[in-house]
């Protein structure tokens, strides 16, 4: 199998956009190249749950027509018009199925578009299809999809990360230059780290959540997946901004992320190494080596590296695994077989609403989803609320304070995105707790609502390592600036990771 079926798929989204504008390539050509690539590698990777070639090509043709027409119509086109995109199947789309990788929503077609999808359609990015994920975004490996696993393009015996493994794998394997993900505890950043791509979790409220199927409302955030920081920034600028349909959406103007990503100047910037997330149990040596080499590059470029202390982070995982399932247990209550999606009738006995609901949920939800619903229901129940949910919210406040203090000492914070490189498929399926540990470095940002970006920063044993930059809430621009700088420094040394993706082996 060859990655160079058509070399244009190896360009960055920004380069594709520029070639579309200059007329060197057409969107139809570009979209078709990606569809060809999808046809070629999907049997191995299974990054997509649904591909909609017709719709994508139609939009591409529209862009080409507008561009050919010239004048106002061509000028009105968005910078990224004609650049294809893939969408995590947790984000609702009209005309393409949305399943959240659950049996519960098998065959369900949303009658409305998510706000980010409206923006994508408005900007005329051909939507290639819907990407795989852990069911209802619950998992860190994309092994919990009801429709089969996704493989890591770097090593197809390994997981691509989760829950947005489909989007990350699609971008890493040149099936799509851009993708949308959602990040509740690291579901954009962790798969980005595991696939050698860039993933951003924006400031909470920076991108509308309207139309993202909720797992944990106070933590969920839609964000961009791309191969470069610049590409992620461009997509972030497109999907960001205030949405009156989302009460938690911020009123802010969208920042100039792409400009920040291309500045590359870190001289005099203070970069804070989070003591709790830069070493210790569970951290692989290869990851730590890549991390210290990144720090070295940044220091060489004139950045000041300081160490910051975030003592409450020791409790972040515990707090997260109470708040997330509590909210999830509530958000998932609507899947009852009454109005849409799967309905399963009890095999015997009377046909009452309670029994239909129970049979539907028993058959429709996977194991991890059930585990979290039970956990969350328990944590919220009378008599346990204060001990669990209440305490977790207090820890959340402490974590926010830790960040506040840390950002007094540093412009941005840095740590490895995940303590390890991607593990083997099936390796942690029977050990949910060890799987949860994987999110230790990404979770604090969700609890505090701050932005985080994972950039590829070297390899460990031939597998990508991600480095995460964190910035204060509403200062996504700082994270783009630092992430762009690191990417640039590594690129100068010939260590740009995403271009080094190995050939995909056949998988039986």
């Amino acid at each position, binding site marked *: 199998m060859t990655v160079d079926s058509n070399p244009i798929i190896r360009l960055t989204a920004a380069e594709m956009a520029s070639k579309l504008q200059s007329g060197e390539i057409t969107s139809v050509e570009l979209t078709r190249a990606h569809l060809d690539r999808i046809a070629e590698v999907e049997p191995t990777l299974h990054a997509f749950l649904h591909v909609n070639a017709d719709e994508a090509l139609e939009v591409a043709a529209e862009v080409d027509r507008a561009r050919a027409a010239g004048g106002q119509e061509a000028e009105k086109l968005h910078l990224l018009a004609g650049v294809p995109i893939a969408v995590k199947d947790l*984000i*609702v789309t009209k005309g393409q199925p*949305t399943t*959240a990788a659950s049996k519960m*929503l098998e065959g*369900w077609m*949303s*009658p*409305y578009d*998510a706000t980010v999808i409206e923006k994508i359609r408005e900007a005329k990015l051909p939507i290639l299809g819907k990407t795989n994920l852990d069911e209802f975004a619950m998992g860190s490996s994309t092994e919990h999809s009801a429709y089969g696993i996704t493989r890591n393009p770097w090593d197809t015996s390994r997981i691509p990360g989760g829950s947005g493994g489909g989007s990350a794998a699609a971008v890493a394997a040149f099936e799509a230059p851009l993708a949308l993900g959602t990040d509740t505890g690291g579901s954009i950043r962790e798969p980005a780290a595991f696939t050698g791509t860039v993933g951003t979790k924006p400031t909470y409220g920076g991108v509308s*959540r*309207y*139309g*993202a*199927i*909720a797992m*944990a*409302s*106070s933590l969920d955030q839609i964000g961009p997946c791309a191969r470069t920081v610049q590409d992620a920034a461009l997509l972030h600028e497109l999907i960001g901004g205030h949405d*009156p*349909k*989302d*009460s*938690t959406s911020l009123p802010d103007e969208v920042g100039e992320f792409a400009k920040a990503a291309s500045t590359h100047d870190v001289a005099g910037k203070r970069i804070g190494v989070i003591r709790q997330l830069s070493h210790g149990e569970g951290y692989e040596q290869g990851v730590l080596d890549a991390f210290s080499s990144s720090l070295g590059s940044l220091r060489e470029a004139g950045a000041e590296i300081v160490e910051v202390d975030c003592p409450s982070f020791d409790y972040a995982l515990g707090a997260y695994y109470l708040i997330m399932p*509590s*909210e999830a*247990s*509530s958000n998932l*209550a*609507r899947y*009852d077989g*009454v*109005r*849409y999606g799967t309905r399963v009738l009890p095999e015997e006995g009377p046909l009452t*609403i*309670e029994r239909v*609901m129970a049979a539907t949920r028993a058959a429709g939800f996977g194991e991890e989803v059930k585990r979290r619903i039970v956990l969350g*229901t328990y944590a*919220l*129940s*009378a008599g346990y*609320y204060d001990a669990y*949910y209440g305490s977790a919210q207090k820890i959340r406040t402490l974590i926010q304070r830790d960040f506040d203090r840390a950002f007094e000492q540093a412009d941005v914070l840095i740590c490895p995105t995940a303590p390890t490189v991607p593990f083997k498929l099936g390796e942690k399926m029977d050990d949910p707790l060890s799987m949860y540990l994987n999110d230790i470095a990404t979770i604090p940002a969700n609890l505090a609502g701050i932005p985080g970006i994972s950039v590829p920063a070297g390899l460990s044993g031939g597998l990508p390592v991600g480095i995460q930059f964190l910035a204060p809430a509403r200062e996504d621009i700082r994270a783009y600036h630092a992430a762009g700088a690191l990417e640039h420094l590594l690129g100068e040394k010939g260590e740009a990771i995403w271009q080094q993706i190995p050939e995909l082996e056949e998988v039986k």
Partner: protein
Amino acid sequence: MNDVAPLGFDEALEKYEPVLGFEVHVELNTKSKMFSSAPNAFGDEANTNVNEVDLGLPGTLPVVNGKAVESAIRLGLALNCSIAEYCRFARKQYFYPDLPKNWQTSQYDEPIAFDGWLDVELDDGEIFRVEIERAHMEEDAGKLTHAGASGRIQGADYSLVDYNRTGVPLIEIVTKPITGAAGRAPEIARAYVAAVRDLVKALDISDAKMEHGNVRCDANVSLMPRGAETFGTRSETKNVNSMRAVEHAVNYEIRRHAAVLEAGGSIVQETRHWQETSRTTSSGRPKSDADDYRYFPEPDLVPMVTTPEWIDQLKGTLPEPPAERRRRLRTAWDYADKEFRDVVAADLLDEIEETVAQGASPAVARKWWMGEISRLANARGAEPVELGVQPATIVELNQLIEDGRINDKIARQVLEHHLDGQGSPAEIVSDRGLEVVSDDGALTAAVEKAMEENPDVVEKVQGGKLKAIGALIGPVMKETKGQADAGRVREIVLEKLGIED
């Protein structure tokens, strides 16, 4: 034990002290729903006033209706409540097919209004103060129609769901336990619900039609032996939807509780359903204080903050309290007690007040609204206000009568033509030539004709039976197509016969 026949009311009261509590749900008349932009309208085709938010579809998010918050604050102020500076919505989780998200967005430990009171006027004018615990905002659920013999969910073959009502903004007003009501408990129950209804109507925050479910009352009743201090176990009669029914339900529950307690039984804490036909309640589902709704703060909504300036501004929009207004109008209009009560019962205070304000006398205003307009409304199966008669039209109509241009009977016809869209009263009178015939020549001719054709009547009148003139007026009216002035006809007859009146 719970099936014993209810005790007599007086007997029950001799031994037990009733404690009441009410939860009144008020549906707000906002244009859109509590958390979505779908229309808030009653009576449309099922499942048409809904969007993806109301249906709780995956990915949807709520947005708070600012107008509903304003209504809640105004109601809170009118109920003499404190208004929270900061409050939140919470999710109240339970499974029911008319609740699309399987949780209700409501307020739990942070209601927008709390600690108030409402003075309730009883039939004899006595004022009873009901303490208000809280008034909080929430959303309504959909409506289920159970297909099957009983019409109840138990044993239904299937149920139809109409989500039009889903997400309609509600305010739930919860009283503190009401003690000291004694034998007046049923009357207090009715008067309290009436007072709340009048209040929300005066505030113009609800259509306040109990028959449409705009105002629904859950009535809690418990009994404690006379002299005791601990409340008894309560029952909660759900969704009682008329003032009369609330009164009856409280009466029945007092008698039922007393009978159970007298027989040595104990009251089961449960919800009960009001049966209008038998005027009894029947057992619903058991309800304990430990019902676990797993409340937690709604993460999809940001907390609400009320500023003192905003509250002051809303205070300025409060209407005259309904009880005070009624007292003022009763004095000003000088109606008999029954007349006034009937006007209140017919919901026509606003219309009569406006008609008087535009120049009619209170008596004339009452005559038209309580008489012809109510009659026409009744015939057309509508409420008087729904006919759309403007107070100015009544004033104009009355002026035509006072000017002698039409008589009462014609005026009634004119009103009917007006309702059929034929123009203003004056236009109708002139277009249709309905003016009273005041031309003596034409009248005299008609009178002479009538006298010629009815010699026996003429004889009677001449014989001193002046009342018999009526028998001549009829034919004259017929001759003039009803447009004769009856008074003038009488005068002409007397003139002709040379009789002094």
